[in-house]
């Protein structure tokens, strides 16, 4: 059985009785069992996956209504809540946290008969871009296990890339979907802020983050977006997309479309030679597809990473303040503690990157320093948003390589936080401005993937997916060596 098939082919396979849900799920579980010891994409496997599969098979056999997913195995980043099961955010602080409710995206997947195959690894509280900051050990890149898979949704990227599941949901605060998508050679979409409900996503920087699909194909991304998007009464920031069907006319092409090549994101000084060459090649491909490409400068992009870390640290400091181990958390005897000392003791379980960002988050918005840091960061954000608005009056899309470099080796950057931050250079703009952005696998060089990022204006996912589809159809990539 080919576990590497797309979501749409899986659905066809089930409909044509090529295999049953149970057969596919049990073979997937077996595959996970074999490869995940090495890859460590998963933190936990769903013990009820086979039972769920049998239930859906029964529905199919008895001609009952079956949801669009027909039991396809989907993995979920472990910062998205499912009632009655653990959501750890790859942190020791939430080691024993069992969510009392289910997130909106999971409810939607469940009602379409997806099977949640397991919860995937991430950098602790989604802070990082290599999974090296997971409290439970890193995931490994299936293209070369000496290399990081990207992050923070690294486990999700690996699980899709290594065919441990059909698709995955990740979250993207500054590139956390697109970065591992690029590093693992899968499609990763960060939707417009508000298009997908965040209800049940454990907040890191709630003003800019989104849940999004990670999938094998652009069509699969559209398929999943159809399911998870839309207004939600449990999230006041969601927008009404009028049940738009993102699969319709996905093959419309981009003939005559205007594409802006973001100068700051394609600067030869910032890119590795291979990434630069690949980007230039992608530009030629877009032109062959009938689009008009030209350089466009976004001045504020230079400050975007600084603004991003200032804003996200501030919000993280606030969002993670609740982890005081009073209402939930881990076993910890409180006797003998006065509550201030209890809280600080309880919070000593955070890992180094989370602590770094919370210290930063305590400083940059504080009374004496906000003017120099936090307020300036907000100014960059609003100026960048204005710039983006302006360029989308002229262009349909903006493009860049998703990540300025290819996957790096474990430990290579962990002691150099600033160089690690610069890896986010091309991805944070979409988060700061709220626009949708997608990473499309474009090339395998030196045995490691390179992805191309396409951005579009607010709520232009339909058009964005058309461009991504057109690009995807021009490439023919090797199978993952797993």
């Amino acid at each position, binding site marked *: 059985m080919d576990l590497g098939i797309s979501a749409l082919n899986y659905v066809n396979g089930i409909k044509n009785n090529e295999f049953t849900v149970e057969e596919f799920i049990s073979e997937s579980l077996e595959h996970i069992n074999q490869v995940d010891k090495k890859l460590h994409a998963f933190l936990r496997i769903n013990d009820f996956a086979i039972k769920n599969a049998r239930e859906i098979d029964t529905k199919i056999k008895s001609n009952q209504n079956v949801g669009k997913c027909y039991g396809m195995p989907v993995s979920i980043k472990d*910062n*998205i*809540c499912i009632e009655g099961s653990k959501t750890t955010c790859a942190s020791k602080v939430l080691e024993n946290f069992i969510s009392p409710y289910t997130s909106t995206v999971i409810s939607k997947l469940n009602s379409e008969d997806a099977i949640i195959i397991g919860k995937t690894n991430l950098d602790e509280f989604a802070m990082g871009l290599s999974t090296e900051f997971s409290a439970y050990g890193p995931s490994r890149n299936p293209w070369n296990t000496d290399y990081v898979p990207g992050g923070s949704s690294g486990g999700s990227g690996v699980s899709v890339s290594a065919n441990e599941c059909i698709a995955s949901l990740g979250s993207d605060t500054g590139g956390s979907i697109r970065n591992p998508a690029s590093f693992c050679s899968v499609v990763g979409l960060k939707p417009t802020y508000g298009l997908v409900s965040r*209800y049940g*996503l454990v907040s890191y920087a709630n003003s800019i983050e989104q849940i999004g699909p990670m999938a094998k194909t652009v069509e699969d991304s559209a398929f999943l977006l159809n399911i998870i998007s839309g207004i939600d009464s449990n999230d006041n*920031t969601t927008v009404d997309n009028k049940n738009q069907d993102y699969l319709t006319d996905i093959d419309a092409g981009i003939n005559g479309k205007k594409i802006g090549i973001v100068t700051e994101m394609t600067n030869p000084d910032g890119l590795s030679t291979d990434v630069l060459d690949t980007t230039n090649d992608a530009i030629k491909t877009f032109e062959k597809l009938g689009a008009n490409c030209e350089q466009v400068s976004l001045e504020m992009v230079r400050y975007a990473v600084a603004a991003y870390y200032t804003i996200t640290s501030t*919000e993280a400091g*606030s969002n993670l*303040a609740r982890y005081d181990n009073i209402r939930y958390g881990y076993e910890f005897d409180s006797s003998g503690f006065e509550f201030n000392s209890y809280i600080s003791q309880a919070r000593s379980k955070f890992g180094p990157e989370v602590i770094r960002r919370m210290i930063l988050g305590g400083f940059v918005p504080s009374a004496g320093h906000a003017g120099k840091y936090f307020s300036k960061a907000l100014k960059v954000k609003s100026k960048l948003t204005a710039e983006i608005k302006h360029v989308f009056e002229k262009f349909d899309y903006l493009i860049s390589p998703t990540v300025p470099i290819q996957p790096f080796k474990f430990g290579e950057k962990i002691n150099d936080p600033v160089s690690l931050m610069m890896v986010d250079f091309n991805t944070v703009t979409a988060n700061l401005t709220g626009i949708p952005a997608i990473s499309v696998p474009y090339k395998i060089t030196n045995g490691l993937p390179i992805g191309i990022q396409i951005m579009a204006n607010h709520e232009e996912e339909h058009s964005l997916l058309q461009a991504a589809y057109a690009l995807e159809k021009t490439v023919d990539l090797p199978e993952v060596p797993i």
Partner: protein
Amino acid sequence: MTKIGLEIHCQLTKLESKLFCSCKADYRGFEPNTNICPVCMGIPGSLPLLNKSAVEKATLIAMALDCKTPNRIAFFRKNYFYPDLPKNFQITQLNAYGNTSIGWEGKISVENKEIKIRRIQLEEDPGRLIYEGATEKTELTLVDYNRAGTPLVEIVTEPDFETPHQVREFLNILSDLLENLNVSDPGLEGAMRADANVSIEGGSKVEIKNIGSFHDLEKAVHFEITRQQSLAERKIEIIQETRHWDDGRKITVSARTKEEEAEYRYHLEADIPWVRIDDNTKNQLQLHMPESISSKKERYVSKYGITSQVADILSSDRYFSELFEKANNETNAKDIANMITTDIMGLLDTREKREMSKLEGDHISDLVEYIKSNKITRASAKLALDEVIKNGKPLSQIIEDLDLGHVSDEATLSDIITEVLNEEAKAVEDAKQNPDIVNFLVGKVMQKTRGKADPELTLVLLKKNLGVK
């Protein structure tokens, strides 16, 4: 000059649900930690959902206090660690990036003095800490989150008060106003709390917290002024500090000598999009704003000739003024008002009694009419009121059930009088010498009729019978 400013926290207890979730706004009477959900417990991944009615009620307060109101409001996070705060930040408001709180620059008149309102904001109440034993020696701190997320309106005044008495008057007026707006029930335990800032000429500002009641607030402010004056007389510096009111010793005590400068790292709450309050909404709110207490009082006096004292009592109480409005049929307004203030207020003097009461406006207007047309005596009217409050039956039926009808029929009354005269032979003899004894005999007739006899007719008949003038 003495300057006193207040920070008042008032729960919007009349709302159905909390500020950001669907748990009950009035948490009283629940077992600890049963009026909670993922949102008000700050469970990871939960998101605040703004209660739009809370915004309207708070805006109503701002309008009633003559505040300027914004076209759009925003919420901010105030970050600090405390075990009663489930998220370790409070969602509140802040006039940063322009005025985005519920209201600002308002005013209210207290004893002919204008007290300016600096700011009004909408925020969430934290939970409650319960210490086992004395606070200092407690081994165990328990947290009840039932209150966490209750909608709270904070009203900050300018330091315009000069005396503790003005403070007390202001709080009484404000409390009546909030009750009249039907946004809060200030009588509920903990529904209205206040902190005070006190400074005297040349001294620093001292904040007094932890004050249980308005009565204590007046005392605390009084104590604090005296304390500061006595320091000033002895040329001792008055330091800027926070002091707590010690309810047992009736004094203020320093909370900490060196209060750390508060660092709240305020920033926008992105989970709640800015809320527009357009002119149409404001007009609608203004249109449905309950009549103010002063306008009610004025109307009661000028339109119905109700005395100023009665009008004052009636208008400042939402429940009884509503009862008056319902009972009032424009003909017996003054009598209705008097009956409410003299008889009914005494019978319904607690919240529980009011909630249980079956008394309707019609009962009161009927009763007043019955008294006027001599169908019932005042004494019987009280008995009838007791009964109506209990069972809410129509007045006519209660009079029949209890046999409270007026005895003004001459034949019936004559029979009773004859009976009394036979029983009281000595008094009859005495009455011929001393006419005052007649009143004793009237009393005896009233006794026999259980207060139903028409007193005037009884007197006439008795005198006729005894042959006295």
